[in-house]
């Protein structure tokens, strides 16, 4: 906007300046004692604590162990959401009646924040693995459903007409025409689902779980260990970023294979 895009060198220089200013300011206010340590640790303390937690346990497990137990629930919840949401979305895209029946229910539930399911999730499935999985499911389900539905709904009519003319039945129509055509939309939805599911997982673990990174952070908060809380945030952010990068790669690979991007 303000002139042409910056050159790579300029971008890097300004980026380094911004990052340095941020870290420098943070270091300055913490090491000078302006902000007490138990309120905000210095960046160095945080990094040290993070690496310390990688090997020594806190709240019953090391950070990688907490992450592993979080990730199990997470994968379970997201896969469940995909396994139910995608087929249902495709069916809704094909059968008008199903669409008309499910949409009002779905619209009604949409405004309830996924995290508000926590009490029922705890009551129905306990706080071990079932409860958190249900909350992750509540967060990850809507994008799976909506994107499969949209993908199926906006298939080129000519494809459907051609298939119909050849006497294709409902099942083959969904599996061989709608599903392949909807794949780009479905994959985009999965990426949104993965992000929302990760977010819901953190919420679930803060409230009900007895293991996992969220639980570790609540324990640290209870014993006023700000550094450990922030190390947990760092771990959650890193894993979330990793999931997003992997799915982005997957999406790009899929688009290339189908010749959507030149």
């Amino acid at each position, binding site marked *: 906007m303000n002139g042409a895009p910056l050159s790579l060198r300029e971008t890097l220089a*300004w980026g380094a300046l*911004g990052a340095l200013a941020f870290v420098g300011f943070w270091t300055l206010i913490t090491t000078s004692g302006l902000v007490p340590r138990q309120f905000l640790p210095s960046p160095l303390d945080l990094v040290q604590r993070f690496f310390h937690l990688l090997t020594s346990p806190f709240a019953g497990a090391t950070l990688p162990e907490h992450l592993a137990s979080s990730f199990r629930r997470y994968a379970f919840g997201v896969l469940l959401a995909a396994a139910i949401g995608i087929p249902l979305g495709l069916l809704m895209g094909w059968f008008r009646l199903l669409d*008309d029946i499910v949409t*009002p229910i779905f619209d009604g539930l949409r405004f309830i*924040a996924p*995290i508000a399911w926590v*009490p029922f999730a705890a009551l129905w499935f306990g706080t071990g693995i079932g409860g958190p999985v249900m909350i992750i499911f509540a967060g990850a389900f809507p994008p799976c459903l909506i994107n499969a539905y949209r993908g199926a709904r906006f298939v080129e009519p000519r494809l459907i007409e051609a298939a119909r003319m050849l006497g294709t039945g409902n099942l083959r129509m969904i599996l061989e025409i709608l599903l392949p055509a909807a794949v780009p939309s479905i994959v985009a939805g999965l990426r949104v689902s993965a992000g929302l599911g990760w977010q819901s997982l953190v919420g679930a673990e*803060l409230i009900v779980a007895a293991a996992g990174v969220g639980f570790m952070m609540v324990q640290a908060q209870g014993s006023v260990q700000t550094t450990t*809380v922030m190390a947990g945030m*760092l771990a959650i952010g890193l894993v979330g970023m990793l999931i997003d990068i992997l799915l982005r790669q997957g999406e790009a690979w899929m688009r290339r294979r189908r010749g959507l991007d030149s």
Partner: protein
Amino acid sequence: MIGRRGLIGLGTVAGVIALWFLLTTLTGIVSGARFPSPSEFWASLVQIWTRGYAGGQLLAHALHSLKLVVMGFLVAIATGIPLGLWMGWSRRAEAAINPVFLVIRPIPPLAWIPLAILWLGLGDAAKIMVIWFSAFVPSVINTFAGVRNIDRPILEAARMLGTPRGRMVTEIIAPAASPLIFTGLRLSLQASWTTLVAAELVGAMVGVGFVLNMAQQDLYPAMILVGMITVGILGWATTVALARVERQALAWNVAARD
């Protein structure tokens, strides 16, 4: 008149209520300890509406939550939109702020809750802080994208006419970016409710999330349902209100008027 779709929709809602009645009150397949019957739900609603539950009446809890969401949301708008405008306007600002954003953005807003409690305690300030965090990121990103998507000729025309900088921002850039800004605000609003409910579930003295928390501890399914429906109604009402503001603000925009 109600079309076919609306008719089936009404039928579905009636069917769900009938099924609910059938499963709980009539046959008892779903026990009251897991999901309340319609009459239990009604009794809980009357209880919290008239006598109160978890330290207050429903209206007081709901208004308190609403107040926090609106405050956090407004703070996020007031900081996020200017930052987004600035990042969109200046390539240098974008390059300098991006690395910090790259670090903060992947951290889910809910993960700020324990830190907010450590810093600000269990009161309103901590909640406003986490709502601010959750609503801030979508408003910055969408405002930024909105500015970057403005047609160049519009800017060049304004510049050629010698528009001063201040008027450039208020009369050209902000209006031209406003459709995307509002998209960001809708996302921000949703994030605000999710975060508030989570924060109130983790620790609060009043609010809808606190009602849910107490009902969970009391093993009181009917009150859980009352709390959830309240959350849904509040989320719906604020979304409708925002959509109304959007229609007013974007009345000039033909594309948004449908």
